[in-house]
């Protein structure tokens, strides 16, 4: 994020009433809802999910995560550029506030849709029906692969102001994708082996992701991972129930981040499109044989766009190959095992 990027929330809170429809105090409305969410909803999400699905221990979906998403949204666009109006930022901020709140209803299942139930609790003095509807629609599109943003209505006029639903949804979705760094992991519980087996890989991933930054105006997202040797050669249970190396999970998630950027690019203006993921994976080791270190590569739009049908090794051929082999989890495992035996 450039130094000049304002935090979107700070910027919003400083807007005068004249920036909003009918000169209404939308800042006060937002603060009221935000405080309610922090006190009544965000704090309890994790506890509810554990109760509903004991095998799942979510990484952070509460107030900290919301702050992180807002921070990432502030990196994705420079609000001072006039990309969004104050009223549109109202929609964005509230969509960010409620986007994961649906977990509190029924856990992970259908959480995107359950956010609607949360928003209905707010009375007409806070939000009109139309505002609730659009905020819920935007929040719902933060996940899912059936082109949820593309299926939003075109620019809508609300109280004489144009609301670009797709643009707002794209900012939320991308910001949420980038908000998965170490602050999200339950580090203490991880270190003390208190995280369930099914959820460990997500916490380990988050804990290893030191930074994930959208570099405004450069079209790049920069990701830095730091992992120890132990973590590198250990296998974790993934979503499908298979045991895989963390490195393979990192590659998979990098592809996902790349695809999310490409997807969201469709709805963002030229200046705010991200088409490169620049990754450095640093391995904390004294062993000189562990190479390459860091594992560095770029995921970039190249040639005919058929990224979805390629593996990461096909996309980054030169960067993730060594001695004729793909630099995957097995590669490092064998390398380290061999070096240990030789010792």
């Amino acid at each position, binding site marked *: 994020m450039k130094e000049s990027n304002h935090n979107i929330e700070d910027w919003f809170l400083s807007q005068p009433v004249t920036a909003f*429809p*009918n000169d209404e105090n939308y800042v006060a409305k937002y603060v009221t809802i935000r405080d309610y969410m922090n006190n009544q909803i965000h704090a309890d999400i994790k506890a509810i999910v554990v109760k509903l699905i004991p095998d799942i221990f979510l990484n952070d979906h509460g107030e900290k995560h919301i702050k992180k998403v807002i921070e990432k949204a502030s990196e994705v666009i420079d609000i001072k550029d006039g990309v969004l109006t104050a009223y549109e930022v109202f929609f964005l901020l509230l969509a960010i506030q409620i986007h994961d709140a649906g977990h509190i209803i029924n856990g992970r299942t259908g959480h995107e*849709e359950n956010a*609607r*139930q949360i928003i*209905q609790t707010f009375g*007409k003095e806070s939000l*009109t*029906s*139309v505002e*609730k*509807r*659009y905020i819920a629609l935007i929040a719902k599109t933060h996940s899912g692969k059936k082109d949820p943003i*593309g*299926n*939003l*209505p*075109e620019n*809508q*006029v*609300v*109280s*004489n102001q144009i609301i670009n639903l797709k643009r707002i949804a794209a900012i939320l979705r991308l910001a949420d994708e980038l908000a998965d760094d170490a602050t999200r992991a339950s580090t203490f519980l991880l270190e003390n082996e208190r995280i369930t087996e099914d959820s460990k890989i997500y916490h380990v991933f988050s804990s290893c992701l030191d930074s994930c930054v959208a570099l405004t105006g450069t079209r790049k997202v920069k990701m830095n991972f730091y992992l120890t040797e132990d973590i590198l050669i250990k296998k974790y249970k993934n979503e499908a129930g298979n045991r895989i190396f963390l490195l393979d999970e990192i590659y998979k998630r990098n592809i996902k981040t790349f695809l999310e950027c490409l997807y969201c690019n469709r709805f963002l203006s030229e200046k705010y499109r991200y088409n490169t993921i620049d990754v450095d994976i640093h391995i904390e080791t004294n062993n000189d044989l562990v190479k390459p270190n860091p594992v560095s590569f770029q995921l970039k739009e190249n040639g005919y766009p058929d990224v979805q049908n390629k593996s990461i090794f096909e996309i980054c051929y030169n960067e993730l190959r060594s001695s004729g082999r793909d630099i995957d989890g097995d590669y490092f495992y064998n390398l380290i095992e061999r070096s240990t035996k030789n010792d």
Partner: protein
Amino acid sequence: MIKNPFEIKTPEQNSADEIVSLFVDVFTDFFQVKETNHTFINGPRGSGKSMMFRYILPDCQKIVKKCEFNELDFFSIYIPIKKTNINIVDFERLENHANTVLNEHLLVTYVLSISFEFIADTIKEELNNYDQEIQNFYEKEFISLLRLAGYQEAKMNLKANGVNLFKQMAKVLDHMYRECSNYCKRIAIQNEIVPYNGPLVDFIDFLLPLFQELNKLSFFPPNKAFYLLFDDAGYLNKEQTKILNTWVSYRTTKDICIKISTQHDYLTYLTSTGKRIDSPHDYSEINIATKYTSSGEDYYKRIKMIVEKRLDVYLGLEINAEDFFPEDEEQEKRIREIYDEIAEKKFDPIKKYQGTDAARRYCRSEFVKERKSGKSGMTYSYAGFNQLVAISSGVIRHFLAPAQEMYSLLLSRNQDSEIKFIPDNFQNEIITNYSEKFLTDEFDKIFTDSKDDAAQLKKADKLKNLVDSLGELFHAIFVSERADRVVFSVALNDRPDTELQEVIDLGIKYGYFHKSTIGNKTGTGRNSLYILSRVLAPYYKLNPLGFFGYQFMSSDTLKIALTKPKDFINLYIKRLEKPENEAELTLFD
């Protein structure tokens, strides 16, 4: 009292038994209507769209399939879109406030209110055998989805029986519809936009899940889609049309199939998400008039079956349609004589078909010219089942309406006698009047509808000029010495400009033209072909039978007819008068 076998009733006015007894199966021609797919059914008024819809409603299908409701292949629900209902045109203020979301709310509540009412009226007391199931549906699905949408007020009589529960749910939705509709009318007249605080529902989060849950009720066919039959969807406003298209784009055909009928007046194929729905990816499409004008044999068979069925059901008469509507024998005899004369005169031992080909092409033309030059003037008769079918131009109503009149008139004159056929003079008189009324009455309506809209009035004027010009021209060709004398259509070499296209589209909307395509002269593509309705054949004294020729022309040439019909006619009459100049006889190139 003797019933008129050709009486036209709107399909809603007929009972299921009547519909099933009268209906002639057209689904071999239009199989897409019954398929599990979204479908557009396009056709002018009277072409049978509403009748098709009526036939596939559950009460009729139950009789046809001889089964219970939950054994049907689909459960269809009739959703009429009439001018006075949903498309309140003073929604212009919504352009400044939540246009899509409010219009979708109106459309969803309208559709669901009608649907629940329809279910109650169709399944009737049988629903009372499922009180508990319906109550569970009401509490667990209907109310909880309503609350998610922000509706807090539902008060229902939970002790009501199945029928009344459905009616009450319909009432709740109707109330939601009216609340929003009244809000929209209020902001139309106020200066300020007052916030809307009522509930809001949409297709994906409300209508679809409700129908998915409805399908689980044991009185509906399990795992079979609901068919929503939107009749006359051309009456929707533009935003509602886009919303309906968005529903089509969702590919929900496992649960809901959307069948949309239009009179070629559907406003747009864009969705509210900015995309466009396309055939065949998103929907299948049928064009009734195009199908029946290009496949005359199928249409002839259909009308014949309809006539013979009606005569049997209403009068107990087992008689051929051709015998009930006989030709003018004297005329046909003379035409056969002329045919033989031409065939003999043009006989060529090498080109064996030349004589009969020429005879077929020219016999009626020569007959008319003979009559025209005689003392009786132009007295060509349009009597005969064959001609009446051809004149109806693929639109069933254009056969039944004059037939109804013929029968009524005859009945009023022969009150005590059994009617076994319609005399040819009756047929000719009525069909000629019908043709004139089709032109003049429809134009009176167009002019009345357009009187406050100067631009539309001009368009109507131009349309009248265009129709008159082509009618007169085609008659002039018919009684000329040209090789091709039966011309009913023009094919444009190039794309018409906006002015010409709008006038042609108006003509298509009112049924004066049908649109088709034809291969171009160089064989590299297709051109638009505009076919004059054969209902106008008696008025302009044209031959409704036989193969119809067409003429290529440029759109600039055709445009002359919009404002200078006399110039247009004079230009081509001169060419027709000099048949020896073959280059000029190609007329419109």
